[in-house]
Every structure is written in structure tokens, then in C-alpha cells.
């Protein structure tokens, strides 16, 4: 693998603001997905390994995200020129005055869900009332909180770690889960789908698009072509992953092993399939990366309702699409 940590600070302004073809020395940029290597980011790893970034004249440093290396912090600190963030986090940062820009909205449909064991008697949202529900951090609580508030449900919230063990061991009655991750972990811990009750937020009017690629206003202003090249190569990586799933899985699993992360091919295969489904719910892989104004406004209005932002950013300022295929 050609993953190496560039110790050089990236002084992009040294270049003329354009990215030229391969004959010139490649531009080094750092990219941080928001979590540890897994199929959720298959497209980026694939783009890197298949040389799509290099073809665009980019020497990308792929760092490993996660709780210890939050991508938002990295982006704001200028450590990474590109990072993935959830849309809600992007909006939150923008409304707080950070000059970050969404240059591609990758996941269109929210994978966040609540899941409960049927054995606990939970069948409908109302059954959650008064129950112990474990939830991840604030960003992951926007949808559940709106969901509970809208239905007048009150729950005992327990903090949820990065695993789903608390639910598995019956420490709580319901837990947050990502459809592409924890839900499958439950299935692969021996629970059958018919033994689980699921609440997908996108089915309850709370569809929050998730992963998107972000950069800073400054970066976009000074190096639009570089940004465009990065998005183009990333989308290409995703399209390649869509067409060559096993190969992409091999790539992802190699990254996971290097990071000492338990790597289950079955699990990653599930994840990749779900992620691809979430990126293009209509199956159209030609039109990746757009953020619809409707989705944007849904998220900002819920966040406003929840008191998370005071003023919603302008859609046209927040999202700059580079997604036209050329």
C-alpha cells in the first residue's frame, strides 16, 4: 500500500490554484473519513488503490478517523483538506460560523435506526415509552429526539458505546444502530430479523442524508479544480466499487487488517451493499453526490426545531456541486 503519512504541511497556495495533468508533480492533500476503515468508505479506498486520485494529479493521504481523530476537528484545524462529515454536523458547523462547504453529498438516505428485541415487547414507536434506550453522541440524537418529541414519547437515555453489546446483553431495551453496521452485527450475533423491531428514521419523515465530502471555503475558493478533481476521483472510486464489489471488499479488508480492526468479510459485504443502496436509493449511479434542497431544508428545519442551530445556512452557500459527470 502506498499509504504513508505525509509529514509535509500542505501549502496548497504554492500552486497556481489549478491541478494539472500527471506530467506535473502531484499535489499532496490529506483526506480523513469520519471513522475507521470499513466498507462505509470503500469508494475512497478503491479510488486510491485503483489510482483514480493519482490520475487526477492528486497524492492523497488517507488518514484513519474515529473518536480519537474526529474528522470535523481535523478539517477545521486544517490538518485535512478533505473530510467526510454527516450532513447534520456540516450544517451545525456552518451555522456556528465555520467556513466549511459540502462539495459532494454521498449518502442520500439515513441509515440511522432504532432497534429493539421483540422479546422485550417493543413493536411500535409507542412501546418505547418509558424504556431504556441507548443513544450515541449528540449528532446521532437529533433524529431520535425529534422522533420521540413528535410522538410524545419519553425514554430513559443511556449513553451508547461504539458497540451494540448493551442491547445484545439486554442492558437496554432499544439502541441506535446503523443499518449497514450494527443491525447486521445483531443478525450475526444470532438474532433473526423476525426477532427484531426496527425503526428507520427515513421512514418517519426524518430522512437525514449522512456522509458527505467537505472542504473549507478557502480551499474551494483557491483550488476549485483540485476540489473538483478530488470529488471526481472519489465518485469514480464509488462507481468502481459498485461495479466491482469483491475487489473493493478486498481493498477495504486490507485497510482494516492494517488498522487491527476485526475484519469480517461477510459483515463488510453487507455494509458495502447497504452503503451503495443508501448512496443511490434509485439505483442511478450516474448521479452521485448531489444534495437536494429538499433534504437540506428538512435537516435544517429539524435542527432548528431541536434548538441545535439558530440560523440555517444558505443552501447555495453550503453545497457546491461538482457532481456533473464530464
Amino acid at each position, binding site marked *: 500500500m502506498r499509504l504513508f503519512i505525509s509529514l509535509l504541511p500542505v501549502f496548497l497556495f504554492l500552486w497556481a490554484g489549478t491541478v494539472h495533468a500527471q506530467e506535473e508533480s502531484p499535489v499532496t492533500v490529506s483526506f480523513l473519513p469520519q471513522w475507521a476503515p470499513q466498507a462505509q468508505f470503500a469508494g475512497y479506498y478503491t479510488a486510491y488503490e485503483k489510482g483514480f486520485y493519482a490520475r487526477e494529479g492528486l497524492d492523497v493521504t488517507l488518514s484513519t478517523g474515529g473518536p480519537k481523530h474526529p474528522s470535523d476537528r481535523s478539517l477545521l484545524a486544517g490538518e485535512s483538506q478533505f473530510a467526510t462529515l454527516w450532513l447534520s454536523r456540516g450544517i451545525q458547523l456552518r451555522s456556528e460560523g465555520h467556513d466549511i462547504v459540502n462539495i459532494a453529498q454521498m449518502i442520500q438516505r439515513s441509515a440511522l435506526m432504532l432497534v429493539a428485541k421483540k422479546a422485550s415487547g417493543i413493536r411500535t414507536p409507542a412501546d418505547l415509552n418509558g424504556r431504556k434506550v441507548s443513544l450515541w453522541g449528540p449528532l446521532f440524537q437529533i433524529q431520535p429526539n425529534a422522533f420521540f418529541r413528535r410522538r410524545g414519547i419519553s425514554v430513559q437515555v443511556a449513553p451508547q458505546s461504539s458497540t451494540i*453489546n448493551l442491547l445484545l446483553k439486554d442492558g437496554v431495551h432499544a439502541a441506535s444502530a446503523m443499518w449497514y453496521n450494527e443491525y447486521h452485527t445483531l*443478525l450475526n450475533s444470532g438474532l433473526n430479523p423476525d426477532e427484531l423491531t426496527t425503526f428507520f428514521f427515513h421512514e418517519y419523515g426524518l430522512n437525514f442524508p449522512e456522509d458527505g465530502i467537505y472542504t473549507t471555503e478557502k480551499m474551494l475558493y483557491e483550488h476549485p479544480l483540485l476540489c473538483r478533481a478530488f470529488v471526481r476521483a472519489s465518485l469514480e472510486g464509488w462507481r468502481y466499487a459498485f461495479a466491482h464489489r469483491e475487489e473493493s471488499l478486498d481493498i477495504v479488508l486490507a485497510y482494516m487488517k492494517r488498522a487491527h480492526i476485526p475484519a469480517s468479510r461477510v459483515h463488510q459485504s453487507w455494509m458495502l451493499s447497504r452503503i451503495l443502496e443508501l448512496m443511490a436509493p434509485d439505483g442511478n449511479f450516474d448521479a452521485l453526490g448531489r444534495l437536494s434542497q429538499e433534504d437540506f431544508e428538512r435537516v435544517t428545519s429539524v435542527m432548528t426545531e431541536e434548538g441545535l442551530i439558530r440560523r440555517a445556512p444558505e443552501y447555495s452557500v453550503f453545497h457546491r456541486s461538482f457532481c456533473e459527470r464530464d
Partner: protein
Amino acid sequence: MKGIRNRGVAFKLFLLLFAGSFLVFFLVLANNYEISRGIVLESVQANASLLTQSTSNRIGMVLSTVETVVQSMSGLLERFSLEPDDLPRLVQGVVTDHPNLFGSAVALEPHAFAGTPDCFAPYAYRGSDGVHTMFLDCDTYHHPETDWYQIPKHLEQPVWSEPYFDEGGGDTLMATYSVPFHRTDQGQRRFAGIVTADIALDWLQDVVSSIRVEETGYGFLLSGNGTLITHPRRDLVMNETLFGVAEMLGDTRIRTVGRAMVRGESGFVRWKSIVTEEEGWLAFAPLGFGGWSLGVFLPEEELMEGASRLTRNVLFLGAGGFLALLGIVYLAAHSTTKPLRALARSTMDIAAGNLDAPLPRVRSGDEIGRLTRAFEHMTRALKEHIRRLTETTRAKERIESELHIARDIQMGILPKLFPPFPDEPQFDIHAVIVPAREVGGDFYDFYRVDADRICFAIGDVSGKGVPASLFMAVAKTLIKAVAAGGAGPAETLRRVNDELAVENESCMFVTVFLGMIDLRTGRVEYANGGHNPPLVLPRHGTISVPPRVAGALLGAMEGLRFETGSIALKPGDTLFLFTDGVTEAQNERLELFTDARLKSALTAVREKPLREKTARILDEVRAFAGAAEQADDITLLALTYYGEEGRDRESSPADAAPLPSERREHGRN
């Protein structure tokens, strides 16, 4: 099928015994195999149970020590109100005192009690250079959110964590035992925090991977979530759950077993090795810690090697014995049926006609001996029968030839020359006789008695065959002799009757119609000795019967009186005489020809020449009888009177006599 049916007895016997003993052998072998497998399986099951038990115990010894330590710490914390400042020393001491512990922590519930810090969790761990104590970093590692903290807290009971790789990024597999502890404050028992101990699990992996069953049997450990903690396939360990493996292999059976294992059940099920894909069994049992479950794969082929060897042995022994038995059966069948085959060959000769063919010599008294003697008897009887048959046939042939001669003689005494009187154009006479057997009892006769008169007669002797013909010959001769002497018809019959009756010991009799025609006048005088009255077929008009005259059959008794009757024939009239063989001729439906049919037949041939008349009537009778056997002699005699006009008026030249010379002499001129 037909091939087998036609094979020899020895072959069939051989085949039957072969099939029968093979079946028995096969069943015994199969049963033997099943039973020995059953025995092996029982012991395999028992051993597997022992193995899982002993492995569980080995693991349990270590884990229970950890549990005891942590629980006693929890007890200490509950009973003594230790200050937070005491806790680092506590965990340091515990890790130092218990070499099998990797680390230990006491994590306090934030704000549980007045004075409890926001985040307080001293942690002692074993480093390469001794035991160190630190405080878990609350910024990056917020312990109240961790599984090891939350799960026992919410469940309010001790919990073993899922195994994990240590935070140092090393490859050491770890597990944490967490026990919640409580404190009573103002009379209220409240959750106060969690005490934990971490242990490395590499020794556990060693214990489980030391499980060896034959060559390819292995053990594996499953966490409460179904994650493979140890497995011979290193790539699966900590990466996959057994359910993931099930999904990967598309095998729902694995999932079912996995569910039973994580539920803490024990079992013994059919299983396919995930390593070698060998078939076998899986024995599984809960470990009793952390919901972990131990599975032991038992390779069938290797474990059944003993049973298979036994079965192979039995198979070889049995097959040897089986072959020997077949040899014996073959020889026995062959030698038993040897005389039978010899007999079969001899009897084929006999069947081909060689009755003198030698039969095999019989020594035994069994079925084959009896059969041979029976054949001997049969050939003797056959020979005797053939000899007698030959004699009889010879006698019959002689008789037949004699009968033939007799018939020739009989036919010889009847006038057969037609026309008999070519010099007499005034009339013609024609007769046919068809005997029912070779020699008949009917007769006819005609001869000249003087210049103008012709005598004619028809008769029927009772009975048939040689006696009848002899009697007929006598009667005919007598009639001719008497009539030639000048006696009239009645007188002739009277004298013939007397003559025949005198020495008629055989009681035979004869019916006779005797007539004499005067050729000048056409007058016919006649007498009837019990015969069917003749018919008169006039040239014109209806058929009539001559007037009845007294008379009876001849030869039965002496002194009978006969009358003479007379009719006058006009030119063209025909007198038709016949025996009862005509009117009583039977067809296949046993109907009689009858007088009526005869009359109509006669009417039909009225215009025909004389010979054709008799021929047609005879044809008519034969056509009527069809295929029915002729029961009686059939005799016809027809006489046509032409008067002075002569025969010239008769139409066709075809009616001419069979002899052209006669015709030339007495024909149309």
C-alpha cells in the same frame, strides 16, 4: 429373463443360493456396521462430553479465580467506605497479588454520592516493568459509556465482556470481568460503580487449540455474541461470528447450532468441519462464563476408523467364506444334476425316436433314480405299444384291401354298361349306386327275360358292409335266376323270399322292387318286397306312384304272398326307382331329403336326358347333405319308355352313352 429360464437347474440353483446368501451376508454386514458404529458413536459422544467438561473445568479454574478476586473487591467496596484516594492502592495491590490478572479498575459512578468526582477511575495494569497505576482519561475515554461499565450497571450483575484486543493495539486478546457495587447512603442502597479485572486470553486460546481429536478434530470457543474467540482458522478468529461463517458458507445449519450455543445449550449434532469440510459431529457445551460456549468437532471418518476396520475385516472374511460357499454350491449343484443332464440327453434321443437309446445307469433311489426308472418303464411300454400298433395297422390294411376287393366284386356284379340295351330304342335305363361304406347293401339289376320283356330290380339289404353285400349278392343272384326262369314279378319275389328265408340264420332281409317292362306296349308288371314305391315321372303331368301291391320284405319269413301290380308307361314316361338312402339322406342339421324334395327335383329334370336325370338327382342329394357323412347307400334307377318312336326324339347328343362305339351303333339312326 428368458435367458435365465432356459438355463440349467445347476445354474438356477447356484444363482438362487448366490442371491440368497449374498443378501444374508449383506444384511449381516450392514447390521454389524451399524451396531459397531453405534457403539463407537456412543463412546465418541461420551468422550466428547468428557473433553468439553474437562476443558471447561481448566478454563473455569482460571476464570473463577478472577471472578472471586473481583467479587471480593466489590464486597470490600460495599462493606467499607473506602475513600477515592484508597482506590489506586487497592487496584495496584490486587494486580500485584494476582499474577494472572492483566489489569484492574474501580470506576465510580459520576455524582452517585455527594463528593463523588465527575470522572474517577483508577486503573492498575501489568506492564513489562511492573504494575502501574493510572487514571482512565475522561476526555478520550469516557468510562461511563463503555460496555464493561454500562452492561453490569444496567443488568445489576457481574458480566464478562466480549473478548477484545487490548487498547495498546497489540494482538493480545483480552476480556474484562466487571462487577457492580453499591453503597448505602441515607438508608438507600445505590449503584456506586464498577470493579473490573482484565485478563489476557492467550492461555485460553492455547487450552482450546490443544484440543485434538484424531487428526482433524478441533475445538473452538464462541463468545456470547457468537464471535469465534479461538478456532484453527486464524482468519476467522475475532473477525467473524459463527453466524457470519454461516452467512459466508450459506449454511443455515451452522446458524441454528450457533443460536443454540449462544443460548447456552449443550448438544451433539452432525457437523461439517469449517477447516477441512469433513463430515462429523459437533459437541458443544456452555463454558459457564460470559455466555461463552465451547465446541468440539469430531471427524467422523477418523473416529469411525475402528468400526470401519472391523467392518472391512468382516467384509473380507465374509467375502472369503462367501466365495468358498459359492464354490461348494456350484460343485454340489453340478454333481447333483449330472445324472439329470445325462438323463436329459438320453431322453432327447428317445424323443427323437430311438427307443433303444441307453438310459444312464441308476444307482440312487432319489428322484433322479426314480425318474430314470420311470423313463425305462416308459420306453418299454412305448415299444410294446408300437409293436401292437404295427400289428393292428397291418391287420387293418389287410382288411381294407380285402374290403376294396369286395367292393370291386360287388360293383362287378352290378351291370355298369350303359346303355345296356342299345338294340332296344323303345326304352333306356340308367342306374347309379353310391355305397355308404366300401361295400354296400343296395343293389340294382336289369336283364332281358324274353324277346319283349326286360326285368329290372332295385333292392336294399338290411345292414351294411360285408355281410350286407354278401346277402345282396345272394338275393340278386336268386332274383335273376328265378326271374330268368319265366316267373312273373310276384312269383319271383315269393320264390326268392322262400329261398332266402330258409337258411337265413343271420336274420338278414332285403327289400326289393321288381318290375318287368313289355317293350312293345310299355306295360310294366311289378311286385314290391317292402321297398319304397317308385315314382312315375310322366312326360306331361304330375308325378305319381304306382298302385300299391301286397308284399313284404324278403328273407324274414317263409311263405309270404306277393301281388303283381301293373302300370302302363306312355312314350316319354320315366319310372324312377330309388332306395331309402335318397329320401333319408341327412344334412348337417339332421333334416331328411324327403319324398317332397325328390319329387320337386324330379320335376325339375323332366326335360333332361335320362343320364342327366340320375346325375342331377344325385347331385341334388349330395348338395343337400353337404358335409354330413353319408349314412346309407344311395341307389337310383331310372327307366324311360320311348315306345315305337324310339330314343330319337331325345334332344341332346350329349346324353349319349359314354362309349362312342355303342353310340355309333345305336345312336340317332
